[in-house]
């Protein structure tokens, strides 16, 4: 499966937030979307997911050689085709327990087998399954946000700053999870704003985004070597 966007132009509240954004993510690869705060990373993910409707440009899903245009489709329809979102800020449902957060995403009681599969990635979650979302630490929330995406058995996961604001130990274990998911054939598009080092050996390739425009596409080492791109993305 491949999810891709062509020439997205997005306006929010009379402001052009994305222009000419094109990008791809396929099963089994980890793609980084790198850019500073306000560059348009979240908007890009939201447009792919159908949460934001682009003024022009298209979003496609290619599955088993069949190309499907999904521009402006309802998010739940896109989710139904195998795309999941791990939102920035996690958005764990606060008055639902860990199990219930998984239940609503699955659409019913999660079968034991699937549950064990998910808890294999996050054994900690298995131990706090009856805790309310509001009582979870940042790390636990992030694990649950990924677990919640996983119970839907997605082929592609859009992760919005999944490593943001977490303790180094948790970052390390989430990095391992991301690698394992790729090994399982899941495609991941993940955004990163600040700390490029922690995604350096994680991503197969990256896009650089600045002020709503894709300014780089290629290997991360090439991006880091490119003075002009570095200046646009980090202003250094």
């Amino acid at each position, binding site marked *: 499966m491949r999810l891709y966007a062509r020439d997205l132009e997005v306006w929010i509240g009379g402001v052009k937030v994305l222009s000419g954004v094109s990008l791809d993510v396929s099963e089994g690869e980890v793609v980084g979307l790198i850019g500073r705060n306000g560059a348009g990373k979240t908007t890009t993910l939201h447009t792919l997911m159908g949460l934001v409707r682009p003024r022009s440009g298209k979003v496609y899903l290619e599955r088993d050689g069949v190309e499907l245009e999904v521009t402006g489709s309802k998010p739940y329809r896109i989710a139904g085709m195998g795309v*999941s979102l791990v939102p920035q800020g996690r958005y764990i449902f606060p008055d639902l327990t860990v199990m219930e957060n998984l239940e*609503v995403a699955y659409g019913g009681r999660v079968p034991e087998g699937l549950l064990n599969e998910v808890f294999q990635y996050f054994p900690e979650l298995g131990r706090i399954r009856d805790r309310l979302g509001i009582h979870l630490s940042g790390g636990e929330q992030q694990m649950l946000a990924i677990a919640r995406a996983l119970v839907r058995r997605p082929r592609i996961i859009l992760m919005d700053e999944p490593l943001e604001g977490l303790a180094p130990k948790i970052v390390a274990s989430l990095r391992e999870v991301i690698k394992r998911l790729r090994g399982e054939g899941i495609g991941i598009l993940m955004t990163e704003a600040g700390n490029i080092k922690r995604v350096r050996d994680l991503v197969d390739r990256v896009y650089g985004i600045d002020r709503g425009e894709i300014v780089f596409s290629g290997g991360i080492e090439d991006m880091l070597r490119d003075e002009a791109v570095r200046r646009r993305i980090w202003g250094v």
Partner: protein
Amino acid sequence: MDISLIVVQAFNALFYASILFLISSGLSLIYGIMRILNLSHGALYMVGAYVTYTVVILWLGLDWFSMILGYLASILVVGGLGILVERILLKPLYGKSHDLQLLLTFALILILDDVVKMIWGPEYRAFPKLPGFSIPVGDFQVPIYFIFTVLLGFSVAIVLHLFFTRTTVGKMIRAMTYSPEVASALGINTDRLFALSFGLGAALAGLAGGVAVPLYTASPGMGTEVIVLSFAVIVIGGMGSIKGALLGSLIVGFSRVFMVMLFPVMEIALIYIIMALILLVKPTGLFGMEMRERR
């Protein structure tokens, strides 16, 4: 004062509170889930009253069995009406100004009032008597219908509680209340749940009308007074909270009935004084949570 009078008035208050609860729980659900202040909720209650009246008095004859059928008809007709209103009229307004939604629900009051007048005429439609017998209490009588209504009100509260805490759909609605965007991105069909939620709220208003009509009679515009008090109930109890609607209904029901008895001049004023005091201490109402602003 006569103790039996107090007992009878307590049943009066409980009856009144039960009706208020059925109406305001629906109003509160719709607001809590969809952030829509449904001004037409009282008009839906009125339609529910006419439907039960028609089934029981015009069609089947007054007995418990036809009462139950009348309630079911009110639930189905008004719930269905709610779903149609949401799908056809409200849905196009999502993401637009809240004023438009308010205007629409206000327009619905006028439309439904006229529709009711067209179908049933402008005159009051009263039950000849309450279903069931009365229990003597001292010099007074407590109709069994009051007790039935109170039990029904509590049962509905319990069923709603179980629905939102035990069923996946109920939990999905709570997830959607927190963030419709994220719920949708997780594959939850939020369009269907919005329609269901509005339909559920409307169905509760319909049931309330059916339960109220034997005592209060059906008339065009009967929803207006009750909607104002329902707003007081949910402001006191907290917007979006079933528990709040229950407690708020009891507070408003008892203060209304006992003020009428003790100090009629203050009958309505007291409710607003209570409301103002609670808002001073807890601006979100007794069981209200901070409502997160939506992006």
